C-alpha cells in the first residue's frame, strides 16, 4: 500500500486548520459550560489516522468518549466528505471477521474484542478515512476560501445586492432600471417604496457604513490582510498538499473488500511459504465463517509447519491455518492421540491463544502485554521441553498408529490433548515474532529449540497431514 504517512499528516493538519473549534451541539444540549467539546473532532480524526476501518463502538471505547458524541462527530465528518462509513447488520461472526481483519491490518491497534460474544445481529457502524476524497475536499476548500476573498477584494464578478430595510425584499443591480425613482436619486422598493440600501459585503466590516468610499478602502485593506494571513497560516497545509500531490493515494476500499483483503494479506504473511499453501487451498473451500475462528486453530497450523519441516519461524501460520484446524483437528486427534503428552492446558489454551494472537497483532506492545507474554513464554518453554522428550517417542507411536488404522474413538481424549500440545507450540512460535523485537535473546534461543523439535517431528507430522486431508475429503 502506498505510504500513508504524508496523508495522515495532511489529515492532521486539515483537522487542526478547519475543525479545531468545531463543536457538536446536541439538540437537547442547551446548557453551555458542560458541553464544551471543542477539539474532540481533532482527536477523532487523529485517532482515525492510526486506523483503517474501525468499528465506531471500538473507537468510542478507545477514545473514551460516548458513542453518541462520536457518532455525531462522525456524521459531521461524513457530511464533510472526510470519512466513509458503512453500516451493516451482523452477529458475532461478522464481528470476528472484522476483528481478524483489524488484527491483520493494523499494527498497534488494540481491537476491543471483548464485546464479541454478546453481539446478536446488531447494526454495526464502521468508519474509515477516505484519503482521496480528503485530498480533494481540502483543496476545494482552500480554493473556495481564496476565491471568495479575492472576489470580494477586487469586487470582481460580484453583483451588488440591495435590500429593503422595511420589507426585507432583496434586489440585485440587474433590477436597477426598475428601481430608480424620478424624484430622487435613491433606489426604491417596488412593493413598499422604501429606500433601498446596498447590502454590505458579509465578510468584511459590518461596522463600516456602506456606500462610503473610505469604508470600501478600509474594507479592501482588511480583505488583503485576511488573505495574506490565510495564506501564511495555511502554508503548512498547502505545502503538505503539494507534497502529497504525486503520491499514490492509499485506498482501503469498502468495508467488505477491505476485510477480505486484510485477511488475505494476513494469511499470506502468516501462512507458510510453500508447503502449507496446498493444504490451505484445500481447506479454504470451507465457508468463510470459519475464518473468524481460525485464530484458535493457529496452533494447528503450527503443527503443520513442523510437518513441512520448514524453518522454525513458521510461527506466522496461525491465521492461515484456522480453517483446517477445525476439521483437521479432529483427524489429527484420531491419528495422533497416542503421542500427546497429557497437557491439561490444551483446551483452555485455545481461547487464550486467540487472545494471544490479537496481542501479537497489536504492534505496540504494552508493558502489560509483555509481562503476559513472558509468562506464556516461560510456560511454553517448560512445556516444550517436556514435549521434546515425549515427541520422540510419540512420533514412533504415531507412525504405528497410522499404519495400523486404529479406530478413532478410542483415542479421542488423547488426541485433544495432542492438539493442545501443538497449540502451545504454535502460540509459542507466534509469540516469537513479537518477542524477537522486544527481548531478542529469548526469542533466538527459543527458536532454535523449536527447530530441533520440528525436525524431529517433521517426518511423522507430514504423513499425518496427508492422511488427514485424505480423510476429510472422503468424509
Amino acid at each position, binding site marked *: 500500500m502506498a505510504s500513508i504517512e504524508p496523508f495522515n499528516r495532511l489529515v492532521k493538519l486539515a483537522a487542526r486548520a478547519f475543525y479545531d473549534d468545531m463543536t457538536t451541539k446536541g439538540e437537547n444540549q442547551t446548557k453551555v459550560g458542560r458541553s464544551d467539546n471543542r477539539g474532540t473532532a481533532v482527536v477523532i480524526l487523529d485517532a482515525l489516522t492510526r486506523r483503517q476501518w474501525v468499528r465506531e463502538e471500538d473507537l468510542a471505547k478507545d477514545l473514551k468518549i460516548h458513542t453518541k458524541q462520536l457518532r455525531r462527530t462522525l456524521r459531521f465528518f461524513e457530511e464533510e466528505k472526510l470519512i466513509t462509513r458503512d453500516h451493516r447488520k451482523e452477529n458475532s461472526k461478522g464481528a470476528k471477521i472484522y476483528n481478524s481483519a483489524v488484527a491483520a491490518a493494523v499494527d498497534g491497534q488494540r481491537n476491543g474484542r471483548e464485546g464479541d460474544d454478546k453481539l446478536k445481529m446488531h447494526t454495526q457502524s464502521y468508519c474509515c478515512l477516505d484519503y482521496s476524497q480528503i485530498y480533494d475536499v481540502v483543496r476545494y476548500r482552500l480554493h473556495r476560501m481564496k476565491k471568495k476573498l479575492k472576489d470580494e477584494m*477586487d*469586487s*470582481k*464578478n*460580484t*453583483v*451588488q445586492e440591495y435590500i429593503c430595510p422595511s420589507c426585507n425584499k432583496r434586489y*440585485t*443591480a*440587474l*433590477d*436597477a*432600471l426598475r428601481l*430608480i425613482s424620478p424624484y430622487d*436619486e*435613491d*433606489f426604491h422598493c417596488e412593493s413598499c417604496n422604501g429606500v433601498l440600501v*446596498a447590502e454590505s459585503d458579509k465578510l468584511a466590516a459590518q461596522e463600516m457604513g456602506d*456606500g462610503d*468610499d473610505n469604508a*470600501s*478602502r478600509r474594507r*479592501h485593506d482588511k480583505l488583503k490582510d485576511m488573505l495574506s494571513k490565510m495564506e501564511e497560516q495555511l502554508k503548512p497545509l498547502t505545502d503538505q498538499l503539494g507534497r502529497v500531490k504525486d503520491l499514490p493515494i492509499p485506498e482501503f476500499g469498502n468495508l467488505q473488500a477491505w476485510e477480505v483483503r486484510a485477511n488475505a494479506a494476513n494469511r499470506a504473511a502468516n501462512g507458510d511459504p510453500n508447503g502449507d499453501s496446498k493444504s490451505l487451498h484445500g481447506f479454504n473451500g470451507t465457508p468463510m465463517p470459519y475464518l473468524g475462528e481460525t485464530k484458535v486453530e493457529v496452533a494447528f497450523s503450527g503443527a503443520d509447519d513442523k510437518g513441512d519441516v520448514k524453518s522454525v519461524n513458521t510461527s506466522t501460520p496461525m491465521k492461515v491455518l484456522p480453517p483446517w484446524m477445525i476439521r483437521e483437528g479432529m483427524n489429527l486427534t484420531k491419528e495422533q492421540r497416542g503421542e500427546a503428552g497429557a497437557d491439561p492446558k490444551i483446551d483452555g489454551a485455545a481461547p487464550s491463544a486467540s487472545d494471544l494472537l490479537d496481542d501479537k497483532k497489536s504492534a505496540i506492545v504494552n508493558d502489560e502485554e509483555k509481562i503476559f507474554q513472558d509468562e506464556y513464554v516461560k510456560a511454553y518453554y517448560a512445556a516444550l521441553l517436556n514435549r521434546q522428550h515425549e515427541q520422540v517417542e510419540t512420533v514412533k507411536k504415531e507412525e504405528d498408529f497410522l499404519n495400523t488404522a486404529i479406530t478413532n474413538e478410542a483415542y479421542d481424549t488423547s488426541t485433544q490433548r495432542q492438539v493442545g500440545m501443538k497449540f502451545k507450540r504454535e502460540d509459542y512460535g507466534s509469540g516469537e515474532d513479537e518477542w524477537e523485537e522486544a527481548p531478542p535473546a529469548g526469542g533466538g534461543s527459543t527458536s532454535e529449540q523449536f527447530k530441533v523439535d520440528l525436525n524431529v517431528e517433521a517426518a511423522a507430522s507430514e504423513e499425518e497431514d496427508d492422511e488427514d486431508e485424505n480423510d476429510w475429503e472422503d468424509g
Partner: protein
Amino acid sequence: MFFHIVLERNMQLHPRHFGRDMKDKLVSKLMKDVEGTCSGRHGFIVAITGVESIGKGLIRDGTGFVTFPVKYQCVVFRPFKGEILEAVVTMVNKMGFFAEAGPVQIFVSNHLIPDDMEFQTGDMPNYTTSDGSVRIQKESEVRLKIIGTRVDATEIFCIGTIKDDFLGVISDPGSTS
C-alpha cells in the same frame, strides 16, 4: 457584440398596398416593424441590410390581409458578459451611474467604480477622483466591462464595471484625457 444574421418574419400587408410597388411597401413596413426591437434570443435588431426572399402570400379569410413569409438579413447587437463596451453616461446618482451603449442600458454600481473616485452631489452629480483629473458625469463616455446581463423576452439590461485596467472615462467634455 454585433452579428449579421438572417431572420424570418411573417409580414401582414394591407390590401391597399397591393400594386406595382408592393414589394417596396413590404420592405419598408418590415423595417418599421423590426428595427429597434429586441429579442432575448438575438438581441437588438439594429438594421436590416437586405431581403433574401419573400414567399408566397396567403390571403386571410375575412380581412383580406395577405401574409408573406419574409427572410431578411439584419445586424443585431447582443451584449455578453465579459464584453468591453463604450457607452455614454445618462444618469449619475449615489448608487452608481447608468450608461447607454446604443440601445442597451448599463448600470454601474458605486462599488464597481474605482475606489479613488468619489461621488459629488450638486447640479451635475458626478464621480471624481480626489485630484479632479477624471470625472464621470452625464454625457461622459466611458469604457466598461459587462459583468452581468439580464435578458428578458423583449429587453436586455446589463450591469458593468469600470474597476479594471483600461476602463473608465475615455473622453470627458470637462477635461482632456
